[in-house]
């Protein structure tokens, strides 16, 4: 009988080969390229990004300037390439600080509960009610424009967001029997929190960090655009969108447009990656 061809004894099925995930691959490539651009900017940039040439302002693309020049005659391609540095560094710092602080608070809250948890959660609620941009503007008003003040302010306003998401997951992990088993097994609280709980919230943490990165980049670009962040003539995308505005009416939109495009590409790459990682995580069995 043909139906009996399948072996009756269950043999371990060969592990299904993991198909390449194109979303992760492509967004990952974009992000990797951006990072490489930031690192090797001096090698990649065809020109000095700060070299102004009054005789060649607002030029269109040419052999000498592949993407044209801005209203000071600076090479746009070089400025965009150098611009990756600060445009990525800012959000990277914000996310780094926010995840670090958020995770520590989240895990401590989940572990100890009680008044510590309540205080942390209420402070997070209060910070939530405060828009990050307004917070950043306030910080700039107090400490002056630049990279530091907005980064610190936005780090503070991103912390509760990350904290909440991670706390919920850490709390779920904390109540699973394996954590109780670790506790009965005599492991110290620090070991349980770092080696077990942290490791199990790590996938979620990566997803949240990737998703928040895009938002942080947009927020920081907005701060720069408003003239409160990094100051011109430093090459930075938010600044470039802002300085390119005056040329738009004169019929030379390339500076704002190209800088805006870079922001969009980066944000979309991070968001798609974060979304994809999140949905992949949902697909896995969560023991």
């Amino acid at each position, binding site marked *: 009988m043909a139906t009996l061809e399948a072996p009756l004894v269950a043999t371990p099925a060969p592990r299904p080969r993991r198909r390449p995930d194109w979303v992760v691959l492509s967004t990952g490539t974009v992000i990797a390229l951006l990072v490489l651009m930031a690192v090797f900017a001096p090698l990649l940039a065809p020109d000095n990004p700060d070299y102004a040439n009054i005789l060649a302002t607002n030029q269109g693309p040419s052999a000498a300037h592949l993407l044209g020049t801005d209203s000071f005659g600076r090479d746009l391609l070089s400025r965009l390439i150098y611009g990756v540095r600060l445009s990525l560094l800012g959000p990277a710092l914000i996310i780094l600080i926010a995840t670090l602080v958020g995770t520590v608070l989240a895990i401590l809250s989940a572990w100890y*509960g*009680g008044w510590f948890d309540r205080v942390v959660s209420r402070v997070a609620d209060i910070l939530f009610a405060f828009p990050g941009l307004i917070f950043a503007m306030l910080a700039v008003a107090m400490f002056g424009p630049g990279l530091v003040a907005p980064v610190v302010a936005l780090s503070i306003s991103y912390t509760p967001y990350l904290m909440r998401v991670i706390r919920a997951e850490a*709390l779920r992990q*904390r*109540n*699973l*029997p*394996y954590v*109780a*088993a*670790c*506790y*009965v*097994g*005599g*492991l*110290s*609280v620090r070991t349980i929190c770092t*080696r*077990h709980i942290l*490791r*199990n919230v790590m996938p979620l943490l990566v997803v949240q960090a990737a998703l928040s990165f895009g938002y942080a980049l947009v927020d920081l670009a907005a701060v720069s655009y408003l003239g409160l962040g990094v100051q011109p003539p430093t090459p930075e995308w938010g600044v470039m969108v802002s300085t390119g505005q005056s040329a738009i009416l004169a019929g030379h939109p390339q500076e704002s447009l190209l800088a805006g495009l870079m922001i969009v590409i980066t944000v979309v790459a991070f968001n798609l990656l974060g979304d994809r990682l999140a949905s992949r995580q949902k697909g896995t*069995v*969560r*023991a």
Partner: protein
Amino acid sequence: MTDEPVLEVRELRKEYRVRTSRAEAVPAAGSALLGHAVTRRERAGVLVAVDDVSFSVSPGQSLAVVGESGSGKTTVARMVVGLERPTSGTIMVSGRERSWRHVSSRERRRRAREVQIVFQDPYSSLDPRMSVRASLDESLRLHFDWTRERRDERVAELLDQVGLDRRQANSLPKALSGGQRQRVAIARALASEPRVLICDEAVASLDVSIQAQILNLLSDIRDATGVSYLFISHDLAVVRQVSDAVLVMRRGRVIEAGPTASVLSEPSDAYTKQLLAAIPRPGWKPTLSGS
């Protein structure tokens, strides 16, 4: 083997403060580690989960605590291992009282070498990101000052003891079946060489043939190591197989205790009779309890 009990519990009591007046609906406000519901209200705002429970377990003995869900049996187990703090009463292990004030990490490590626990659900009682070897090695590293080679040897020994293939040492829990995971959980509990092993419904979520295997395994382990068992179960058929003595709990109280054979053959309490009548057997028809 001395006759001094390895585990002795006296007048153990556990109350939970309940915020609402509907005690039935609230499982222990504020206690994050509590995993089950309790359905008893004694006086307003206080829920008595365990009331005046005393027993002792001699070395190598196996004591079963049986009762329906909500009878407080799991709470007793959790208090013995230190996951819950008793309201009153004493717990003595190897003649030493377990106090609940400022238990240091060091003290907890010492206690871990006395009593270990195997939980009901093998799917959530192992760290999903830790291989079998890593789980066992973590415990060995914590409790013994051994070289890597010695620990590897011991891991292999533990796997043998619980009937797992050495090849499975490097797999993650998700690659193992429920029965295999439970074996890992038992091996992990045995790693610290405890004198008492608490099995909290340890076979309840396994299917019957696997249950029998695990019960046999536990009995072999007892013969080999002389460990004592505190066996928490709702299943009298299981209890009959593994325990020397049995304690029947209902609503937080002990209602009957004695050697397994006599309690199960001549139950004196109506509730025990009911429990016995609820064991499925050939020709058994489910009936409403209380008849």
